């Protein structure tokens, strides 16, 4: 008897394998390198691994591969989410290189790579086991990463994240058990059976499964962990978490929504998700008012942004998924860019996280202030940034899908957010109230990532990443 494990299987897993091997390599090499070098060796290996995986994923666009007997599928939209996760990895590794503490570099880098593996696994997961495995690989690595620095708030963040996230995973796992009970299968593809629509186990299981996803997306009222964990975690980890967790979870949600629902059940099953997404857009943006910490501000912003992306998917049209991916890509750049600015401002990342550090920034460091303005405008969804285009696309898809009320909540949320973003922008251009602290030299790579993100945020509005250009890639 032979076990089928064809070459197609290998192709599907190659990017994840590259990242995983890079992580092992980091740990092994660290044993042999001494002195000041380990920092750059570890991060260098991580960057190379991430780039290599990104190249391989880019080659997979438009093909279809699957591994684990259909439990992991790639090509199609999975590749886009994988690229986004890798982008988050590269960005946060660069930030880590720019501001990280000198000790525990190898461990941190390896954990970042492993959490990337988990997120990529989720992006292509097509059965409950792979989803669970990917989710836990991502989460367990993130718990550790949160507590990797010797700071009280970091330990607190790790503990809170651990307890709350595990609780949510408990709900999700129980939901998976019920879904298994309803179908006798763990394959998402088997959930398409229309007979399931009359199974109580399926409804309860699906609902509890969605609780887990809503938690990971930090939708209200499952959002309470996000501000504390974002604030307490080290800056590069926060940057990674804010993008990669969202991307991976959205991929699972997309697979569930587009490929795994009995016909006719989708509307009723997902209604609570749309409602919490709508609430998140209001509450997330309202929470941003009167914040004093950039990471906390971006945590609340992230709550609302997750709501925006779900708004694009409401109704489950193929176009909606494309628009969601467009917005998520734009969000990746603007969010990483904002964190990169914080990294350039200060060596430890903590001073750059305080919003008072931005007062009068335009007079001290005009280029940096311009870049930050671009990122904040994009997060607020104002022209001429990709955030603006993304919101227009989201509005059009949700209105044409008949979810007008979500579009209305999106506009209301945006209006609220203008105050918070605008306040930060105006503070940068107003006269500095404090004497500027010494600008410390910063890694040129961090500067480069600021510039790349800013250019991307503007360029995605125009050329060559206009929707008509980028969207055919992801049929």
């Amino acid at each position, binding site marked *: 008897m032979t076990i089928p494990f064809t070459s197609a299987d290998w192709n599907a897993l190659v990017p994840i394998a590259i990242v995983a091997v890079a992580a092992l390599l980091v740990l092994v090499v660290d044993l042999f390198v001494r002195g000041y070098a380990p920092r750059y060796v570890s991060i260098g290996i991580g960057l190379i691994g991430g780039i290599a995986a990104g190249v391989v994923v880019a080659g997979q666009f438009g093909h279809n591969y699957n591994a684990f007997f259909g439990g992991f599928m790639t090509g199609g939209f999975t590749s886009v989410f994988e690229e986004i996760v890798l982008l988050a990895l590269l960005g946060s590794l660069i930030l880590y290189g720019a501001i990280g503490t000198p000790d525990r570099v190898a461990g941190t880098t390896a954990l970042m790579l492993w959490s990337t593996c988990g997120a990529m696994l989720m992006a292509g997961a097509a059965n409950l086991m792979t989803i669970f495995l990917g989710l836990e690989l991502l989460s367990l690595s993130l718990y550790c990463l949160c507590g990797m620095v010797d700071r009280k708030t970091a330990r607190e963040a790790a503990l809170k994240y651990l307890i709350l996230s595990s609780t949510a995973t408990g709900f999700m796992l129980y939901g998976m058990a019920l879904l298994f009970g309803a179908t006798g299968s763990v394959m998402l593809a088997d959930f398409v059976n229309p007979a399931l629509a009359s*199974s109580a186990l399926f409804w309860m299981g699906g609902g509890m499964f969605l609780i887990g996803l809503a938690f990971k997306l930090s939708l*209200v009222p499952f959002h309470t962990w996000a501000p504390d964990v974002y604030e307490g975690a080290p800056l590069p980890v926060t940057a990674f978490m804010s993008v990669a967790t969202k991307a991976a979870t959205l991929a699972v949600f997309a697979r569930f929504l587009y490929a795994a629902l009995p016909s006719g059940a989708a509307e009723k099953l997902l209604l609570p998700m749309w409602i919490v997404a709508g609430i998140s857009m209001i509450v997330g943006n309202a929470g941003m008012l009167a914040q004093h910490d950039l990471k906390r501000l971006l945590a609340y912003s992230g709550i609302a942004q997750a709501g925006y992306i779900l708004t694009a998917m409401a109704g489950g049209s193929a176009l909606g998924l494309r628009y969601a991916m467009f917005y998520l890509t734009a969000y990746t750049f603007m969010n990483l860019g904002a964190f990169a600015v914080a990294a350039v401002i200060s060596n430890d990342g903590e001073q750059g996280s305080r919003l008072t550090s931005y007062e009068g920034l335009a007079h001290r460091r005009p280029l940096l202030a311009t870049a930050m303005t671009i990122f904040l405008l994009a997060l607020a969804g104002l022209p001429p940034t990709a955030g603006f285009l993304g919101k227009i696309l989201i509005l059009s898809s949700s209105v044409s899908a008949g979810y007008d009320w979500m579009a209305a909540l999106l506009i209301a949320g945006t209006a609220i957010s203008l105050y918070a973003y605008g306040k930060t922008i105006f503070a940068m251009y107003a006269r500095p109230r404090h004497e500027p602290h010494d600008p410390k030299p910063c890694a040129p790579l961090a500067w480069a990532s600021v510039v790349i993100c800013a250019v991307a945020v503007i360029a995605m509005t125009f050329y060559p990443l206009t929707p008509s250009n980028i969207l055919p890639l992801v049929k």
Partner: protein
Amino acid sequence: MHHVMGVDGSYPLLVALWLLPLVGAIVCWAFGPQLKTLSGWLASAMLGGSFVLAVLSWSAGTQNSGGALGAHQALLSWLPGIDFGLLLDPLSLLWTFIITGVGFLIHFYSMGYMDGDRAYARFFAYMNFFVFAMLTLVLSDNFVGLLVGWGLVGLASYFLIGFWFERPTAVAAARKAFVINVVGDVAIMFAIFAIFLNVRSMAFGDVFAAVGSLGSPLLLTICVALFIGAAAKSAQIPLHTWLPDAMEGPTPVSALIHAATMVTAGVYLIARCAPLWSASHDAQMLAGTIGAVTAIAGAILGCVQWDIKRILAYSTMSQIGYMILGVGVGAYQGGIAHFFTHAFFKAQLFLAAGLIIHALGNEQDVRRMGGLRTKMPFAFWAILTGVLSICGIPGFSGFFSKDQVIYGALAHGHPWIYATSIATAGLTAYYMFRLLFITFLGEYRGNAESHAGASDAHHAHHAPAWIMNLPVGVLVLPTVAIGAALMWGGENSPWARYFAPQFAAVTLPAPPISELVTSAIVFMVVLAGFAVAWSRYATKAAQANAVERLRTEAERIPAVLTNLFYFDAFIDLVFVRTAQLTGTLIARILDPHLIDGAVREVVVVTRTAGAFVRSLETGLVRAYALVLAFGAACFIIYYALVAGGVH
């Protein structure tokens, strides 16, 4: 749909013309501390480069190619129906000339005026950015691009008015200008939505080709919305109150933005949308009336001002009223001609006033000037030519353009507008000669220290005098002669031939009063205005006790005029007080303890919501788990109900 006005060819030079000032802005902004005074030269050079490119584009912009007028350069296809591109036709070419040409002179002048300012480079970065925004506005081939430029010039203006942000008045003025401009932006946005919903395209050509298919109520709505935007930007009543306050900015800013270019954006908008306006008689009536009212109101208010820059500001408002009424009633060539000549003579007046202000150590009150003719002869002659031109003395540039506007109002069948604009011409002569006489004749009335200090200050500035004098001298030529050179000869003048392909000729019934007679009437009225000014300020008797006379005159000005027709009070009542009142009501009714009495913005409500959201974040992990469990319980109850329903 194909482009009617756009050409399928391309004209890459246009992109360079458009982007040069942006490059200058970025370089000055990023490397200002390193460049120091070089940034002024760099910024001026960028504008000079743009101007040269505009000259080189003359034939491309005025000739037909590919069946359409002018040169077109596609930039990118965005969403369906929204393609960005640049369009250079006679209209935008003319504006480009003024923006880059007069802009260049004003940049040059600023190198002297701003010398020694600690934010020298930042000033030039803003100025270059403004020019880029203005070029975006006029070169755009579609409404969205125009709106982008429209918003950006407002932003640049906000930065430049508030440039001296140490002065609280400057900050307040900047904020006021910003708020009123946002009102206009929103109106234009509304118009653009209405256009897009009905035409499904944003290109000017497509929209104008579809004018016939828009119903007349819709067309009027669009025109009114566009006009609100134009009125806000061009300081038309009742959205004009920001312009006099905007004089808080440095004088070159007033010359460039608040006289020559940005404030005429409303004129450009109406001229650009000529097919829409020509199709809606009511819209023409509205624009013409508002323009005429603004013209005379601005002139009346100009008669009672004492601040030299505010006199010029009200004069600008009044002259833009002329332009708006010109393009409003359909006399497009006349309205644009007045924009053209006004850009020269008003820039000249502002820059010459800047010479005085600069020399007197930032003194702007004409009551503390006087007798400057002998002390500053250059400034005197510069202002004199400007005054003669703005008054429309025959032969000077202003004469040709103003008479075109006045006669155009009659020719297009608006006798009342015609009469109002003639009366305005008389008032213009009065207040401009009043400015001239008070400032330059008689004895010097300022305090001696300030004057002495001023001459010291003049020496303290490093920049040589010629840097500021040269642009003023250069501007004298067009101020005096460009009207005669281009607009002499009616239908056969170079001006008329230049615009003939752009604006279709309309045959109108001959009006009862001929053009020549109109010119004669206007001249009489102007002479009368001059005579009154002479008798009040220039006679020996008047100058004998000038200080006392000016003081009593200031006391005798009627309250309605010192309060500027109560427009500021009106705006205050409508916008500021309403907001305050609402805030107070909310505070009284909702929760007096929660809401701080000082907070009177709409923000109150969102702040409360924010406080509620933040109160959920107690920091207690068990509380978080409880919120989570609450959410989960809601989910579970919902799914239990659904599951119960399906059984």
